[in-house]
């Protein structure tokens, strides 16, 4: 199968999770200036460098836990996901399934964690290198932007920077607080 057929899969999948009805404007007023402020800036999506910075992130040993079921499309981190949820595919919400590689570029969203009511930046990295997982398709589009705001769009195969652009599934990494 040609790798571009992942679109096909996303479309053909029986599961249909519709966009939430929250306003997209909330995100834009929050992060809009940062992302869109400059006139002629190449709006590269979150790069590997930035993503790796997250590795250095503070880990609180007393976490209250990640409320909800990571295999459910309603799980709080998935508010702007568009793809097969990695935990249903042999991975977890933050790790890719066996044999797939996390995309180094991605789109980011902001979701509210019901456990603490705080908004967090979420990085939706695609897991690349195998055919579509086919399990647990989830399409929430909170704050999704058209493709010309590249780093804010989930209608792109974010495996595009890989040696194989085959799309398999998607993780949702918590990068940090959105209000920090």
């Amino acid at each position, binding site marked *: *199968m*040609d*790798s*571009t*057929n992942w*679109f*096909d899969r*996303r*479309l*053909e*999948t029986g599961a*249909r*999770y*519709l*966009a*939430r*009805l*929250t*306003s*997209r*404007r909330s995100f*834009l*007023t929050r992060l*809009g*200036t940062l992302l*869109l402020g*400059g*006139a*002629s*800036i*190449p*709006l*590269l*999506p979150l790069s590997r460098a930035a993503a790796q910075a997250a590795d250095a992130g503070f880990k609180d040993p007393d976490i209250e836990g990640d409320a909800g079921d990571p295999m459910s499309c309603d799980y709080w981190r998935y508010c702007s996901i568009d793809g097969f949820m990695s935990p249903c595919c042999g991975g977890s919400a933050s790790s890719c399934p066996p044999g797939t590689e996390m995309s180094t*570029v991605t789109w980011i969203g902001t979701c509210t964690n019901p456990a603490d009511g705080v908004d967090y930046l979420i990085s939706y990295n695609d897991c690349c*290198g*195998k*055919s579509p997982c086919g399990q647990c*398709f989830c*399409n929430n*589009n*909170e*704050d*999704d*932007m*058209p*493709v*010309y*705001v*590249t780093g804010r769009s989930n*209608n*792109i*195969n974010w*495996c*595009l*920077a890989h*040696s*194989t*652009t*085959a799309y398999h599934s998607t993780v949702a990494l918590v990068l940090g607080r959105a209000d920090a």
Partner: protein
Amino acid sequence: MIFRLCVAGLLFGVATAPGFSQEFDTFGRSEVLPEPERDWVFVDYSLVDVADDRFLGLIGVAETFPTGAIEYSSDGASLFVVETFYTRGNRGERTDTLTIFDTTTLGVAGEIVIPAKRALMLAITGTLALTDNDRFLAVFNLTPATSISVVDIEAKSFVGEISTPGCSLVFSAGDLSYVMICANGDLLAVTIDENGREVSKERTEQFFDPETDPIREPGVRYGDEWLFVSFDGILHSVDVSGSMPRIGESWSLLSASDREENWRITGRQPLAVHQQSGRLYVLARQNDEPLDDPADWDGTEIWSFDLASRERVQRLEALPESDESDAGGAGLGSTTGDGAANILVTQGDEPLLVSAAGSGVSVRHAMSGEYLHERLQNAPSSGWLSLRVR
């Protein structure tokens, strides 16, 4: 061997036996398409005569779902699609091609290898653009750096890549230029020379405000203008007849009372224009809250506007009454399936309004709104619509 001889013998035996009425068939015949008609429409890659409800053929692309639009030369004699291949299916070495298809067979007639950078994404408008003189075709690249690859159709060769930082998607803007949409709401005018090489890149004033109300990707051409609709139902236009794009006055497709009733402009392919009459068709639906992704929400109504007067002149139910039972049924992937996701109007004196949803493709007389076919029987049930004859 013996088997073959036996069968052959059997056949010859039959051939000489008298007294039966059934005609026998000849081996190896394939159909060839006649001259195209105005009522021929592509539903994804399937060519359908929507007036006669006839499936005509499938473009011989390797993939089945379009990620790049189909481009035609204005004389209708050449057809182009961008394709991506790997030596091992979805792994190995990647090759991107601009593939040229024969219009009488819809089979492959040639290919031009282009940089393996074409944008892999869902949006299909703006992924490629042929200049108005049919000479230079631009392919939108996303790696995620943005650029276009320019192909010389006459010379059948790749000319070069033009870097377009911050700007995406590509639309024809005359014989030697393209416009692109920038993340900050500007347009980018890309001018090439007579060999397809970059001459200039210049940004316009702001076309729309992405912070408050971004435009949606699927623009439609109306004469020398490109029309786009915003999330909030504002129609933006840009005239590309001059050396620089000239931004037109924007206006709202939604009246004050429409807004009070929470109407939204929706659908994957929300706009269609009949050039001759200057009628714009749009998909609309009601929803209490603004929609995060209007593309996922089918239009429950089709409205048409007179572009000159900006008046709404027609209001149609998107689904035929006979299909009300399908409401809420299986949509195209993540669409709602309770209306139409795609619309198109054929051109000429007797335009047809074609609309596609999960439940099927409907065909109406565009001017009267009267149904010609509530549901086509011989067409894919849904898909991106494009014209065979412009």
